[in-house]
Every structure is written in structure tokens, then in C-alpha cells.
């Protein structure tokens, strides 16, 4: 199959799967909803002249619980996958993702702080706000520390990111130890990643950052292509390499920070989705970034569905599900040689 045909086919499959997955995720759960009724309720909600077929309870479940959760899963998955694809081009390494920038640990530190101080119980959205602030503080620390004494190399950025992550992890442990036991569980739930209890407000806030940042990342896809050639060739072609790297990392941090602050830690999505799609749609940013968004959206949608339907008694942590799927995929990919580019 030629390369453009394979790419179009991949996009067609992703776009065809997504509505089915969405419908499945809306129907399945502790209370099952009939697909036909869900569709007519959605149509009625969209202003079409259809009578909503679900009962009052069904309507509530659909509109206040399932729909925002499903959309949020797609937003978080798409955002994290896109960030992974972008950072992999910057670092020229298939193992790069937002964890390298210290964003995840920074967000976690923010969340732990919010719980420890009791803000999260006093103020609505204090936890995601603190997590987002933590993520931004972490990326600013990485930026500032790595620029002491001049422009850092990629290795310099990477090591600074690791150091800031380690520091944030130390902070998390300190605060966890000092937090009352009944509160620790709140933060553990958040750290494990999940979407239960998130509503339209979470979705709106997350979407504002993820969609804006994602659109800007997509707009910088030609710069990403040049960065993937290597710094010297990119510079010889007139790309301001350092500035381009910093802009991409800032956008990546905003998107990943927003995803993490609403969903907690959702690992492996940023690695698996671009890795699986790169051979199918090619490495150019203008193809890989949108494909990764769709792939990541599908992945987290499926993972969230699995997390809340697997057991009757409790929701599995979303982060555990993505890791349970992602880690073996990655090991298999490495064994089969896909990991050798």
C-alpha cells in the first residue's frame, strides 16, 4: 500500500471507531442505557426535533455523569498523546513524554499540597488548580535551572527535568507523611489517575488549555519536522532551534499540565499512541499530531470504560489501566524491533 493511502486509511479507521467508542462508553456502566435512547437524547440535546427517550434518571446519568466524563477522557487522551508526539520530535527519541519535563511530578506535588493544606475540601476545583500551578512551577523551574550559565543542550534539559521531578517526588513524600490519614486517600485516588466525579466545569477548563495548546502545537508542526532532523540541519535551514524547542516545551507543559490536573497521572498514553501511529501515518507533524490526538482519545476512552466496568464493586484507577495495557505493548514493540525506529 502506498504511504498516502495507508495514512488516509488510518485516519478513516480512527474517525470511524471514535463515534462507536463514544456511544459504547455512554451506554455501558453500572446502569446500562439503551443506545437508541441515548442517541435520541443526544439529538434532542443538540436541538433536533426529537423527544428524549431516557427517563429522568437516565437523562441525569447521561448528561451530568457520562457525557462530560467521556469527553474528558477523549480530551485527556488526545492531549497527552499529542504532547508525546511533539516531545518525541524535539528530543528525537521515541521514549520522550511529558514526564521528562517534570510536569507530572509538579502537578502531583501541587495536588498533594492542596490536599495537605485542606484547600481541596474548602474550595471547588482547588485540587486541579493547585495541580496545574504545580505543573507550571515545575516547567518554569526546569527552564530557569537549565538556563543558568547559558543555553542548555537537550541532555541538559533532560537531566534538569529529571532532577526537578525527583525533587518534586521528595516533596510529595514529605507532605504525604505529614498529611492526616483520611486525607491521604483523596490524594492517592488523584495520583492513580481517574475521571470519576469530574463534570462539565473540569471539561471546560481542561478543554480551554488542551485545545488551545494542541492547536498551537499543530501549527508548529513544520518546526517539529525540522527539529526531528537534528539541531544543526534545522539551524542551517533557518530555524531558531533553541526558541523553537522552548516554545514546543512550553505548549507541551500547558497541555500536559491541564490533562494531569483534571485526570491525575495517566501514564503511557503519550508513548503508545504516537509509537503505534508513526509507522501508519508517517512522522510529519501535520499528520502524526492529529492522528495521535485521535488515537490517544480512543485509548483513554477505552481505558476509562474498562476501569469503570471491569468490577461491580469499585472503579479501577485509570492510570493503572493505561499502564497495564501500555507497558506490555511497549515491551512487545521493543522486542519486535519497532522500538529501533
Amino acid at each position, binding site marked *: 500500500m502506498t504511504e498516502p493511502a495507508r495514512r488516509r486509511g488510518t485516519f478513516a479507521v480512527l474517525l470511524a471507531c471514535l463515534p462507536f467508542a463514544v456511544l459504547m462508553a455512554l451506554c455501558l456502566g453500572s446502569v446500562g442505557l439503551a443506545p437508541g435512547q441515548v442517541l435520541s437524547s443526544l439529538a434532542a440535546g443538540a436541538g433536533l426535533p426529537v423527544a428524549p427517550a431516557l427517563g429522568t434518571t437516565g437523562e441525569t446519568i447521561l448528561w451530568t455523569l457520562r457525557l462530560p466524563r467521556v469527553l474528558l477522557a477523549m480530551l485527556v487522551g488526545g492531549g497527552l498523546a499529542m504532547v508525546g508526539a511533539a516531545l518525541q520530535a524535539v528530543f528525537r527519541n*521515541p521514549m520522550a513524554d511529558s514526564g521528562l519535563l517534570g510536569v507530572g511530578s509538579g502537578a502531583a506535588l501541587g495536588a498533594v499540597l492542596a490536599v495537605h493544606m485542606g484547600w481541596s475540601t474548602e474550595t471547588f476545583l482547588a485540587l486541579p488548580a493547585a495541580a496545574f500551578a504545580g505543573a507550571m512551577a515545575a516547567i518554569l523551574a526546569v527552564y530557569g535551572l537549565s538556563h543558568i550559565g547559558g543555553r542548555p543542550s537537550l541532555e541538559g534539559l533532560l537531566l534538569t527535568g529529571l532532577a526537578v521531578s525527583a525533587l518534586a517526588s521528595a516533596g510529595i513524600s514529605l507532605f504525604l507523611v505529614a498529611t492526616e490519614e483520611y486525607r491521604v486517600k483523596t490524594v492517592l485516588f488523584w495520583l492513580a489517575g481517574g475521571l470519576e466525579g469530574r463534570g462539565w466545569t473540569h471539561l471546560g477548563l481542561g478543554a480551554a488549555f488542551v485545545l488551545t495548546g494542541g492547536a498551537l502545537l499543530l501549527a508548529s508542526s*513544520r518546526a517539529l519536522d525540522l527539529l526531528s532532523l537534528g539541531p*544543526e*540541519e534545522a539551524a*542551517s535551514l533557518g530555524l531558531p532551534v533553541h526558541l523553537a524547542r522552548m516554545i514546543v516545551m512550553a505548549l507541551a507543559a500547558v497541555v500536559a499540565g491541564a490533562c494531569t490536573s483534571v485526570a491525575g497521572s495517566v501514564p503511557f498514553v503519550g508513548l503508545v499512541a504516537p509509537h503505534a501511529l*508513526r*509507522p501508519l501515518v508517517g*512522522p510529519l507533524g501535520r499528520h502524526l499530531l492529529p492522528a495521535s490526538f485521535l488515537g490517544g482519545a480512543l485509548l483513554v476512552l477505552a481505558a476509562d470504560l474498562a476501569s469503570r466496568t471491569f468490577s461491580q464493586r469499585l472503579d479501577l484507577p485509570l492510570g493503572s489501566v493505561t499502564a497495564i495495557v501500555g507497558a506490555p505493548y511497549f515491551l512487545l514493540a521493543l522486542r519486535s524491533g519497532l522500538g529501533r*525506529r
Partner: protein
Amino acid sequence: MRLAAHDVAVRRGGVEVLHGIDLTLDGAEAVALVGPNAAGKSTMLRALLGLLPLARGEVRLDGRPIEAWSPEARARHVALVAAEEAAFGALTVRDRVALGRYPHRGPFLPFRPADEAAVDAALAATGIAHLARRALHSLSAGETQLASLARGLAQQPQLLLLDEPGAHLDVGHQLRLFRILDEARARGVGVLAVVHDLQRAAAWAARMVLLAQGRVVLTGTPAEVLSSPECARVFEVTIQRHELSGSAQAVYSFEEPR
């Protein structure tokens, strides 16, 4: 269009590796930069392009300091073709060559037919049009080198700097490479190439610059440079020139001194 380096010194890792280089390249010129390993040839190419900070001296493009040019405008006038690290991801040859249009279209503007035409022309000129859809990392070293050259040609520069463009090419492809460079010169493009094969350099270049230990030792015609005692000294060889009857080219032989 003229690229001129005056008294250029470059430090790398705290050590000065170029000590006051004067070098010019004009449109339609063919200049070979030769010298033993670690002479500073590759560093000089990058300094000429403004990619390295200068410890001293200046580089001017068309009379303006190179750093006063916007990076994109500079890249529209001067292209560098060098041995690259492998690109990340399975980029196709055509996509790679198309990135040579970046200086003309910037990060956001879509390609016009003229851009596609420039890419097609560069692929055709280098004889790799049949590889256009192949992934870069499936190419041989020689094909990779031709793809790099095609990217440089797609840039449509007025000056072309090349770092050992023929290193991985067989004799037929080497001849083709220098013919491609001559075709570019016929369009007014000035070409400065680092060449290790002195015989090939002498056959191609009008001017030869001999670099050793970060200094220009000698500049002149290839015949002048290769016949000089300085050239024999820096390469630590004896050089003999042989005139062949019926050939316009002289042949040089090189031996280790006894």
C-alpha cells in the same frame, strides 16, 4: 552574492580551533577546502554560515554581517550540506528534501506549486526521484548523501557549502555529484566544498584553500597548491604531478616520505 570571512577565530570546548581565517566565496565560483584531518574545515563551514559564535573576526554575506541576517533570509541565500545525524522517525526522502523549502515558506505558509517544483527538480538533478517515497533510514550511505544534497538544492541557495559531499559515493556517483555542482555554478551558484580526495578536488575546483591546524596555509589554483612544499608538509606526503598526453587534467600521485 559574496560570503567573506575576515580574521575568523572560533573556540570549541575552551580551545581555539580556528585562528584568524580569511576566506571568500563568490557566485559561480568553485572552491575546494582541503586539509588534513582536524584542520578545522568542518568548523570553518559552520562558522561561515553563522552557526557558531566567533571568538574574533567577522563573516559578511553580501556586505552585511551574517548575524544581522534573519536566519530564514540567510538560509535562502546560503545552504549547508553536511553529514547529518540520522533523522528521527521514518521520514521519506521527498519529505526530507521538501524541508529545504522552509527558508522560503517559514513555519506556517503552505507550499505553492513553485515549492513542489523545486523539490521535484532537486530530486531529479540528484538522480534519486525513484527513491522519493522511500524512508530515509532504509537508504544506503551514498543515497543518504544524495538526499542531503537534494535538500540543499531544493533550498535554491546562491551559495552552497558542502562538507565532504562525495565521502560515501562510488566513482560514477562522484562524477555525477561534481557535474551537479557544475550545473549549479552555471546558474550562478557559488560552491565551497570540503573535499578529501585531492585528485578530485584538483579536477573540479578553480581555487583551492589549504587549511591546517586552524590556519589558511595557502590559497591558489589547485596546481599551485598541490605543487607547493606546504601542501606536502601538512599532509606529510610527497606529491608528484604527472601530465598525461591527451588529457587536460594532470594526475597527482602521493607517497609516504621515506
